[in-house]
């Protein structure tokens, strides 16, 4: 799996007209694909420009040595919890009984389908899944 990802990954350093470009049109097409976007020709050109400009600024982070710094994904485990407890124990208050229907009843079928762009009254309808 890892090998596959690596082989798909774009080359990190690209150079266009002698100028160092982090992101090329090819990268934009690849990332758009990952993000389930198509983008028009114009949008891709603009995206190359914008992403390079933003990533250029983001590179200032490399001035910092973070080898010994722990990453922080969120704040909830640092504040407002009992620091004497460890791991998931800190969030024991957020647990609930495993009860049928949970905290509230499931949405009635009709209501759950009400916003669907297409349905047959029982299921969401989508274009053909299997392509050939």
């Amino acid at each position, binding site marked *: 799996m890892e090998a596959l990802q690596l082989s798909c990954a774009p080359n990190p350093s690209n150079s266009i007209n002698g100028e160092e470009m982090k992101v090329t049109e090819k990268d934009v097409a690849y*990332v758009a694909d990952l993000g*389930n976007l198509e983008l028009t020709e114009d949008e891709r050109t603009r995206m190359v420009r914008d*992403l390079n400009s933003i*990533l250029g600024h983001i590179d200032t982070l490399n001035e910092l040595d973070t080898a010994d710094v722990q990453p922080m994904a969120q*704040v909830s485990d640092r504040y407002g919890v009992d620091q004497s407890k460890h791991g998931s124990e800190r969030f024991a208050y957020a647990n*609930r009984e495993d009860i049928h229907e949970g905290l509230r009843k499931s949405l009635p079928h009709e209501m759950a389908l009400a916003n669907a762009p297409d349905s047959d009254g029982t299921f969401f309808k989508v*274009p053909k899944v299997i392509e050939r």
Partner: protein
Amino acid sequence: MNLNLLTIEAARSAVQERRTSAVALAESFYAKIESDDPNIGAFLTLSKERAMSKAAEMDALAAKGDKLPPLGGVPVGIKDVMVTKGIRTTAGSKILGNYVPPYDCTAVSRLEAAGAVVLGKLNCDEFAMGSSNENSAWKPVHNPRDLTRVPGGSSGGSAAAVAADMAVAALGSDTGGSIRQPASFCGVVGLMPTYGRVSRYGLIAFASSLDHIGSLTKTVKDAAIVLRTIAGRDPMDSTSADVPVPDYVAELEKPARGLKIGVAKEYLGEGLDAEVRQAIESSIQKLATAGCEIVDISLPHTKYAIPTYYIVATAEASSNLARFDGVRYGYRAEDARTLSGMYRRSRDQGFGAEVKRRIMLGTYALSAGYYDAYYLKAQKVRTLLTRDFEAAFTKVDAIVAPTSPTPAFKLGEKVDDPLAMYLADIYTVTADLAGIPGISVPCGETKDKLPVGLQILGRHFDESTILRIARATEQAAA
């Protein structure tokens, strides 16, 4: 009595004492919206039926002589990123153009349970991504103080509605400054509570570890009343904290005298508009006069906050926005013949330029080969930024700074330069990354009569202290 100028307390007691009715109050706000909003653009959807039924309920209580709840009969607006049962909720996006939610956001239901009358849904940048409200898929919002200028963003409609007397108070959301910066631009009070203080249930997710619900109000006391109403543990949001909610209104009565207030040199450096600096320095002086001790501090990693924020926020956004695929709700492109083509075209046509830019940046930062260099790096710098605050709060009770480096800028001024737009958030994003509470309170004006906001940042779950300092600033500016 001009009904549109009332604060929460004044509006509630006018209804309680039957000097007016909640129905008359709501009608007067709808009349104001009808006459003034065409020039401002703050409202996207009006919820008259729901508002009038709540108003009638409050009038019936008052007629019986029963005590009204704390927001009894008070007309409020809700940013369109919070879902409202049966009322169209678009998040400012075409992709949710026809979305009618089947449930209510917890903050909205708590306001209504406290008697508030929900007038309608307020304009914002698409999925709360923006600093000028120009990313709304529907229409821009104009700053009520100067219609050629932006109201700030992303809660631009919320700030403008309160500033233009079209709502007594409004709910907004803040992920990188989206409550405080528009409050500063429009001259109102904007409070972002601590992360976890207010439930995010029913808030359409942008960046889950950074999203906060808070208020835009005319006064600091109104901010305390709204927070007291919406704060507290909610079983529907596992990140809502199990921390007791103090009586913020009672806490306001404590004087600011004796509090230690930090001033960080990194927030008063290059790029700060001269008139904004003058207003900030003069309000710091007034806090000193009020008996606060002013202490010089340093938050050394501040310059890394914007790059950190734009990696963390966009990475989370790219994941959160993956749910918009044209299957269960929202826009679906008509012309696609395959499932994957349908996903792509629906998203291509449904999302605006800034949202696509952020999905792209976030997806790039999370993609194989770049995860460590961007996402993991940003998470580590997030730790450093948080430690800066932790160190500062061992010396001071709160930190004051400008909310924004400039007053409200002109519509169109930054739309073609995303990086320049991002840099407008330079003083606000760090608080979101660290999860600390912040408030913007009007502290002066420029020569052109544009409002300037003073930002006050506090310790986790210590909204009381920043509200007290905001009150002192409000009183000194009056």
